[in-house]
């Protein structure tokens, strides 16, 4: 251990103090919205407490009961499950081919799947016109299929396959197994750690699907949860159209718009917490795989 001078001791205290303030700043927005989500009808008053003045689960009941809110939630659950599992399968199988260094054309695949698409692209409008020509506008498939294959994820999985000793596959080949069987019986079960990591990061991506849904999805019953959430957050009582929409929603839920203390802010607060919840639940597992995630993030830019 190095001996610490007085200056260092002072620095350490100041440093810890800084991080306490920093952590409070990180937590404040989340704690405040959490409070809002459990409190009905106190908004605007000078209440500086971060605990709800009167605890109420009403907004969460609304999330569960109101179809225009829970429907987008279920849509997001659906595309997350279908998208993550299909994406994982496609990339895991493709990565096996990429792991064969001596296979003719394996270098070309990397150029085709990773390098070239990074340099050139059609951009928003040509892609939109393609989706329209394929009849994918306003269909769940448009949120899943184009995002399914990922060259970067395939490279990460491939790198893991490389670390699996070849002797295991060899012995199966001697027993007469085809490559397909070798992959499903031997490689795939051994690759669970990398597949878990990729599944988590892909899952977070599908759960957060927003931009694609904004561009391609039209009907409100097919909205993803973030799209519905944005609509709720941006409801402003100052806009006639928004106010009417919110009133219609309130009446549909059995409230009298003139009487109730229920606010759009309260409902969006509850929705924000609901949207964060799955991330918080898988967070301990995500943390274990940060290294893999950073590789995905850094290559994707």
């Amino acid at each position: 251990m190095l001996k610490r001078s007085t200056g260092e001791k002072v620095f350490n205290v100041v440093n810890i103090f800084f991080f306490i303030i920093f952590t409070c700043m990180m937590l404040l927005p989340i704690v405040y919205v959490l409070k809002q989500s459990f409190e009905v009808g106190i908004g605007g008053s000078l209440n500086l407490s971060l605990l709800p003045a009167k605890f109420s689960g009403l907004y969460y009941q609304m999330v569960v009961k109101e179809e225009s809110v829970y429907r987008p939630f279920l849509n997001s659950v659906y595309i997350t499950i279908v998208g993550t599992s299909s994406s994982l399968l496609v990339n895991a199988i493709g990565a096996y081919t990429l792991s064969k260094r001596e296979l003719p054309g394996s270098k070309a695949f990397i150029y085709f799947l990773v390098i070239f698409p990074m340099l050139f692209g059609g951009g928003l409008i040509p892609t939109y016109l393609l989706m329209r020509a394929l009849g994918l506008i306003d269909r769940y498939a448009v949120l899943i299929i184009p995002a399914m294959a990922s060259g970067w994820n395939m490279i990460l999985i491939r790198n893991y396959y490389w670390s699996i000793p070849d002797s295991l596959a060899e012995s199966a080949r001697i027993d007469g197994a085809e490559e397909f069987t070798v992959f499903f019986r031997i490689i795939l079960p051994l690759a669970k750690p990398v597949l878990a990591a990729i599944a988590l990061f892909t899952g977070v991506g599908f759960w957060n699907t927003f931009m694609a849904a904004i561009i391609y999805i039209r009907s409100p019953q097919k909205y993803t949860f973030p799209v519905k959430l944005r609509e709720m957050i941006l409801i402003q009582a100052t806009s006639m159209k928004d106010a009417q929409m919110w009133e219609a929603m309130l009446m549909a839920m059995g409230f009298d718009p003139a009487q109730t203390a229920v606010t759009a802010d309260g409902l969006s607060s509850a929705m924000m917490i609901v949207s964060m919840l799955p991330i918080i639940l898988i967070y301990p597992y995500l943390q274990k795989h940060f290294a893999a995630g950073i590789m995905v993030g850094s290559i994707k830019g």
Partner: protein
Amino acid sequence: MDTAIKAKGYQKNQKKILTKTNVMLYLMIATPLILYYIFHYIPMPGIIIGFQQYGLSGFKYWVGFNNFKTAFATFFFWEAFRNSWVFVAFGYIFVTPTPIIFALLMNEVRIKWFKKGVQTISTLPHFVTWVVIGGLFIQLLSPSTGYINLLIKFFGGQPIFFMSNAALFPWMFTFIRIWKNVGYSAIIYLAALSGIDPQLYEAAVIDGANKLRQVWHITLPGIRTTILVLVVLSFSSVLSGMFEPIFILKNSMNRSTAEVLDTYIYSVGIIQGKFNIATAVGLFKAVISMFLLFTANFLSKRVTEDGRSIL
């Protein structure tokens, strides 16, 4: 045994390409190849729409560079163009250095559980969608019900319209960007810091170097390569990734300093249906991005230790 491997397994220096094994392997990668062909390659030639008069029924006639001229003559295009670069500049001045400072300070914290706790909390927002992050701050900063303005009113001040003040917006956006990503971006620097040989510090102490000199002469040179590589890598994507945050944070009051090229292309193309103008602007943006990517690739050879480029 040798022949058995050769008969069934994958062989080196194979002459024949279409063996049964190879065909099987090609079939295994067929799905990603087809998906990439459809969703990444088919739209590529679509950039020619930027040189066409294009209506709802499709191609009408060629117009050369007229779509570009129309866009360049539009006030709102230049506004979005300027804002994009303002955010890029603010990004490099404020967003890029913050995780480095965060990591340097975090590296000095000796209490393990405290360190882990701060990191856990500060990393979480990276995984949360921009819609929620934007929503959190819109509520926190709301002039009527937001907590910050409640505090300001409590101390007798006038509420500040944080999110609907155009002059304030670039600062608010930069702050929220830092808030969302500082913890996650710091991970890679913390990893680089833990790789520095502790003997270097011990030697420096014996030579009488104080903490600041140690940071200047050992710590910063130790993570120099990491910093340079990350900065150079980020060149290629400076103009992307702004759609989601701006789409949630933009409103009618702050539009003049919030609109970026990504959201501009969306509103001109998808909302107004001017496919040809939007494609031209998109192509213009893509050419700048590609130029930056090649610059980054060229520079990366100089900043990596082994002189490798990123492409």
